[in-house]
């Protein structure tokens, strides 16, 4: 089972992962880490997530024009792009790290992100 770590802000996924797993919406092995805003995300958090054994890592922030903190998700997306370059240099497929933009309060968008990352880990397996 692939281990997927996702970083979400307070305004995206509202439903806890264990509920989604119980309902069969997503598979096991998913961990969501909440941040007040994805603008709080730092590059080492992404690298360390892979270091902890994640097969894939994603970030789900607000859509660019709806970020509660104006530019938080935009900043996060730039950091994800930077981290993609670093993991590629270390021999990890950069597709296994991704930024997603979700509607505020929409768990569905985050579920889609999880499914997409599950698909990508299967492709790489």
């Amino acid at each position: 089972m692939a281990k997927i770590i996702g970083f979400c802000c307070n305004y995206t996924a509202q439903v806890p992962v264990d509920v989604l797993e119980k309902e069969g919406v997503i598979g096991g092995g998913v961990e969501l880490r909440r941040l007040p805003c994805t603008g709080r995300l730092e590059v080492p958090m992404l690298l360390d997530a892979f270091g902890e054994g994640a097969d894939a890592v994603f970030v789900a922030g607000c859509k660019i024009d709806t970020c509660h903190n104006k530019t938080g998700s935009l900043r996060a997306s730039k950091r994800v792009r930077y981290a993609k370059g670093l993991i590629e240099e270390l021999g990890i497929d950069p597709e296994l790290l991704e930024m997603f933009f979700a509607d505020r309060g929409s768990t569905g968008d985050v579920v889609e992100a999880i499914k997409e990352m599950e698909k990508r880990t299967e492709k790489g397996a």
Partner: protein
Amino acid sequence: MIIANQKPLGEIMDMLEGVRRVLVLGCRGCVAVCSAGGDKEVKILASAIRLGKGRKGEEIEVVEETFVRQCDPEYLEPLQEMGKDFDLVLSMACGVGVNFIADRVPGVKVKPALNTTFFGANLSSGEWKEMCAGCGACVLHLTGGLCPVARCAKSLSNGPCGGSQGGRCEIDPEVPCIWHEIYEKLKGFNEEASLETIMPIRDWRPSGHGGPRKRIREDLLP
């Protein structure tokens, strides 16, 4: 400030071959301001090293530290003792810091994590541009404050070359011809006639011709 870039991770990982304990040492001077070797970059590189080594199944202890500067002896002092505990100090300072550690801290193996590139200014967040070549013989008083040594691709002393077209340099249309800008700047002050005075052949000796340069101010010596 001195501008630097992190070396490719592959090159850094090669330096860490066989290393079990490394100190990633940042500098809060120029390289922190240009986002190459300050506290944040130390954390990123340390995480990248742990990840890279972990993927190879190799153990490494990575310790993070940042000094105020690596180019002043008082700030390097703690490294005299601390450095002995590490197989390698990976310096995220500019080349000056790396050299200074190598000179001043015997018994400590130091290697660079950055490529030191130029003296530049911060145009906007994430963008730096070369402004000075450190040539040791400033002519900025003759050129409206714009440096033809650092900012002309050919470091010309007496006006543009034939490749200057429409105020742009032949090496790249994005690069302004600095001699065009010098002319426009002086014209704005009604001083363009000063450009008719031919600048003598440049004396490159202060630019490092005689080996490593040194500056002494007698009144400040201990």
